[in-house]
């Protein structure tokens, strides 16, 4: 989940969980020596020379010995001065993972202040981001950096591929065998011979190329609560801001009825699941879908037509990105 990197501190917690649970503090300390040093070396390479004296050791100091992630205030220490990040602190049952003495509740203000004076380049500098950030705002920037790579928008499997848009388009075409279409209008027919079987896995992806951009059209069957529904929506292969310059419409119908959706494509920065769960698209109840299909209701035959267009955008009509994941 790309937008979750803001919470990377809590994801470190999970890692501890995998390593062993709390009381096995030996494992923690061994992680520290190996992992910690290695990660520090990488950071140093990126940074290069800075004005202040031995940079390496300072960055090393700022790594949590348990999870090896960078520490952010409040940074804690034990009576012997061994430091620890706040996420790991709650998981070690008041015992210092380094010396196994009682941990107590001492904050390491000095280290927090040292960190404040540091500046680091964005970790996506090799993807083109030229910016340098104070230690504490670097993390926030990286979670939103426009140069951060995109995840593969293919929803069916756990595809871990990341990259820029041209790379992902080629990847979708070559590795996932996704259909590519040129043009801004479409007319698709989804046929399913046994619509009673609705599984989460029933879905389709088509890529459209128009206005010099790429769009992903998703069509899928899933359970909304206890009820089977079909859903179609569009995602833009690019960032949120550019996505808002486009609109799209989808239409489905039959037997004198039709249902039309007009919306703004979401960026593929938002995961397929997030868009689906926020209901931001054309949702067709199965009864209605079978009604549209005509015939004996045994087969699903949905014709979805639609188009994509570029909006004449006024810059100040900033629409909020829906965040409806909680219900």
């Amino acid at each position: 989940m790309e937008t979750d990197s803001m919470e990377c501190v809590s994801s470190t917690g999970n890692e501890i969980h995998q390593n062993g649970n709390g009381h096995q503090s030996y494992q923690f300390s061994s992680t520290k020596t190996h992992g910690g040093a290695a990660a520090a070396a990488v950071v140093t390479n990126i940074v290069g020379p800075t004005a202040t004296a031995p940079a390496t050791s300072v960055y090393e100091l700022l790594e949590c010995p348990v999870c090896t992630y960078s520490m952010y205030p409040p940074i804690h220490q034990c009576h012997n001065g061994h430091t620890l990040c706040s996420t790991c602190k709650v998981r070690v049952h008041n015992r210092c993972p380094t010396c196994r003495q009682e941990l107590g509740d001492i904050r390491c203000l000095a280290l927090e202040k040292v960190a404040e004076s540091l500046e680091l380049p964005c970790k996506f500098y090799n993807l083109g981001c030229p910016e340098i950030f104070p230690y504490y705002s670097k993390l926030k920037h990286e979670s939103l950096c426009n140069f951060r790579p995109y995840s593969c928008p293919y929803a069916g499997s756990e595809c871990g591929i990341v990259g820029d848009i041209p790379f992902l388009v080629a990847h979708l075409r070559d590795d996932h065998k996704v259909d590519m279409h040129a043009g801004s209008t479409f007319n698709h027919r989804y046929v399913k011979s046994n619509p009673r079987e609705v599984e989460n896995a029933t879905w389709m992806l088509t890529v459209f190329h128009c206005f010099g951009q790429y769009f992903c059209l998703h069509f899928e069957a899933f359970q909304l609560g206890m009820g089977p529904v079909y859903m179609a929506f569009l995602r833009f292969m690019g960032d949120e801001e550019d996505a808002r310059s486009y609109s799209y419409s989808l239409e489905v119908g039959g037997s004198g009825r039709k249902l039309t959706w007009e919306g703004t494509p979401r960026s593929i920065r938002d995961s397929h699941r997030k868009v689906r769960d926020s209901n931001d698209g054309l949702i067709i109840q199965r009864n209605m879908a079978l009604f549209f299909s005509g015939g004996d209701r045994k087969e699903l035959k949905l014709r979805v037509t639609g188009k994509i267009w570029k909006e004449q955008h006024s810059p100040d009509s900033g629409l909020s990105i829906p965040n409806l994941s909680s219900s």
Partner: protein
Amino acid sequence: MEPRINDLQVESRVHELLDFPVHTNQISSAIYECPNDHIENPKKKPYNCPHSGAKCDVTGDIQRLLLHLRNDHNVEMSDGRSFSHRYVHHDPKHLHHATWMLTLLDCCGRKFCLYFEAFHLRKTPMYMAFMQFMGDEEEAMSFSYSLQVGGNGRKLTWQGVPRSIRDSHKTVRDSQDGLIITRKLALFFSTDNNTTDKELKLKVSGRVWREQPVSI
């Protein structure tokens, strides 16, 4: 000038005189119960009161039901050629099947019932809006209607054929023959106008029209 008859006893005597199929309903107020076993023509069969909220047993012809809806259920009438209704739901987190509204619409001298209601569709909270024609199935099919709801740069449009009020409100709802919006989407639509998650404000606009007869 509409005469009002309030005396129920008088009304029930008059009722016999005004019974199907020879009644004139111009001067009647709401007349309760119209049991008539002698109806030959199904088109003349009395309609049930389309007000589905309470268990209303009133039956009658369209004119009678219109008076009944206005006088006894306080249902309002709008122009069906173009309408825009605002539904406010103060506590959308707590959905009951009973949360619903009825409005009457007028188009080409015919009357339509516009329903808006909150319900659970297989455990998922939904809102649904649909229209029913106050008349028989055959004539219902010569009309079309559209309903539109939106906000935050999105809009959802339903275009359909009104069902006759011969079909019960529940039949139409269960066949999903109307505009269905999940609560999530409805709340997203209503965040347009500085509302919080605690209150739902949906603007449903639409129109009814008579389809041109197909000439070949």
